[in-house]
């Protein structure tokens, strides 16, 4: 623990601590908790913002029941779960590998680490637009390059069976560097003596990785997984720009669905219900990951 509770804290110290925390609490109350509470209230109403003459009608849990009768919502949820599982698994797997490869402290590693940051610093809207053009079946550079190795043109975002995986690929392209950089910093914080001791004991590189590096970095990997999992559930820009949720609803995700209900239809009651469900699901996911991390930290002593 970097910060420990000081048993000699005086009342004055505690008051000062709260005073410094107050602005953050106030901002959170105004910007997060009050709107969230209002959203929760709205979720029990039928209310469309642009019908000036209508008043919000209390309908209890109807919005929540409607959600699970709406096949586009179910499709969005399924897509989102599949997208999150696939993209986070791939990003973690490859990200850890890349971090291991870059863990040597030499000039080449430092140079590659710098290059690695390029996809991360491109705005998702820009990268979505870029990839949308690059994966066009007829005019895109991807199929052009593949044609040199005899692969026929593929409709990357026009074929509903492939489009979701294309979006997963673009997400991985953008966020593998993020995973790699965080894991890399964790690897670099491992004392050299731990690694030397393992080698002296005759451990193979694989054993060093699985028995020393992975356990020590696992709390960081769990946190990275949590951040990426929640981010993957919030994906919007890339999908919106690349496919608009199509073909059909093949790449429709929960955020694009909520956007459609809330911003496009201004159906604030139903969109609030979907958003509340979304927040509950995300909080549960975060809780699971935090528990996992605590267990792992306890296991590591």
């Amino acid at each position: 623990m970097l910060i420990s509770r000081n048993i000699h804290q005086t009342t004055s110290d505690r008051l000062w601590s709260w005073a410094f925390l107050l602005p953050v609490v106030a901002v959170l109350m105004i910007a997060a908790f009050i709107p969230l509470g209002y959203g929760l209230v709205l979720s029990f109403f039928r209310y469309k913002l642009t019908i000036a003459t209508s008043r919000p009608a209390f309908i209890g849990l109807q919005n929540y029941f409607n959600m699970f009768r709406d096949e586009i919502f179910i499709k969005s949820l399924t897509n989102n779960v599949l997208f999150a599982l696939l993209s986070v698994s791939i990003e973690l797997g490859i990200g850890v590998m890349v971090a291991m490869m870059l863990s040597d402290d030499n000039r080449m590693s430092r140079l590659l680490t710098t290059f690695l940051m390029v996809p991360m610093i491109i705005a998702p809207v820009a990268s979505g637009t870029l990839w949308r053009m690059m994966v066009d079946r007829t005019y895109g550079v991807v199929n052009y390059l593949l044609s040199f190795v005899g692969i026929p043109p593929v409709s990357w975002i026009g074929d509903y069976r492939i489009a979701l995986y294309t979006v997963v690929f673009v997400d991985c392209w953008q966020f593998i560097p993020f995973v790699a950089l965080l894991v890399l910093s964790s690897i670099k914080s491992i004392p050299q003596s731990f690694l030397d001791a393992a080698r002296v004991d005759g451990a193979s590189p694989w054993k060093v990785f699985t028995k020393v590096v992975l356990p020590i970095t696992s709390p960081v990997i769990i946190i990275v997984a949590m951040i990426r999992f929640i981010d993957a559930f919030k994906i919007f820009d890339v999908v919106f720009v690349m496919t608009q949720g199509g073909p059909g609803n093949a790449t429709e995700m929960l955020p694009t669905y909520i956007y459609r209900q809330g911003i496009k239809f201004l159906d604030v009651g139903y969109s609030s219900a979907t958003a509340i469900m979304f927040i509950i699901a995300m909080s549960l996911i975060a809780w699971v990951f935090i528990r996992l991390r605590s267990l792992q930290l306890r296991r590591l002593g």
Partner: protein
Amino acid sequence: MKKIQILIAVVLVIGLATAAFAGGGKEPPTATEGKPFAGQKITVLYFSATYAEAAKEYSAEFTEKTGCEVEVVDFPYLTLYEKMALALSTEDSTYDIVTPACQWDGEFEPFMEDLEPYIKRDNFDTSDFLPGLWEQSGKWAGKIMGFPFSNTPQTLAYRTDLISDFPENWDEFFEVCEEIHDPPNLYAIAIPGLKEQLSGLWMMVHWSLGGAWADENWNLTIDSPKTREALKITKKWFDYSDPAAPAWGLPESDAAFLNGNAGIAFSWPTLSIAPNGDNPEKSKVVNKWAIAPIPYAENGVTVLSSWDIGIPKAAKNKDAAWEWIKFYTNAEKQLKNFKDYSILPSRESVWEMPEVKNDKLYPHKKASDQGAIIWWRIPAGTMAETTIRDAVANYVTGQWDLERSVRFMENGLAKVLEEYPPAPGVKNSGR
């Protein structure tokens, strides 16, 4: 410590004094002779592209004439609706002028100023606006909430070197496609397959076949053979288009046509094909293209895209805004819009002008006369259109079968009407 406190106090006093004098030093706006709105400023909200470009060009002339400054704010179609809807429904006074697409009229009408008193006050002649168009774009339930300033029926662009007579029905249409289709060099059709545009294209087929979503009393009629036939026709288009088309929007589709890779373009030709089609730097089909109304089928009815211009109830400078409306929609400006920006006129007299009659875009008039309509203009119209959009997109991409798609349309429209029914007395004037 005391010195620091004094220093802070001095800085604060100087700051406050500067702010007070900065505000107080400005003279209140006064009207100068011949410039009744001198010192005022209006903010106008337009759809990006040609409409906003034209408005920006005219703003200097307007300022010169009236003294009123004009700030043109524009957004692309996908975000314009939400910006406008939020501004209007929250009674935000940012915009003095808004330009709703005609399908949003029923939704925005409660937030729009009634223009009848302005028309009467200035004895403004409205007889020149195409009556059928104005009913669908700018009027809602007897209230005048705006004037139409563009009138674009959905048409098709085609290659005149490949097709001599444009087909009259959908069977002939596919015969022509079969003749000219020669992939990968030339695809018969260039089509924007993204669902945003595709559903509109399906509607034009559906309506040209005599189909409708509901009768005038909002009883659903969507579960019909016409609906199924229209879906089949829409799906068949993709047999004659580039396999990339399901992921294309309008820019890619228009580019394929201008690049000479397609014989027929399902598009809004005024947006890109007309401005660029005869420019050798941007087109490989210079002098080899024309516009045609869609195949007539049963009645030739097509989809209408029209924008109207009105004043929000919450606007701050309503008189200056009204002045801009008169200025932007007059015949002179509509002719300039047509010639320089390919914006089709909403005034009968402009359509009759020789430079319009002899233009390549004139077939739009025939399409307009055959019948151009929009989907439900009720507040829940956007929801209804999205239901259609999902069903069409899932059917043509092979994810849903015909019956599932029709069932989805019917159930979705029924839910929309049940949850957000049209106001009492409002009839279905569309399809």
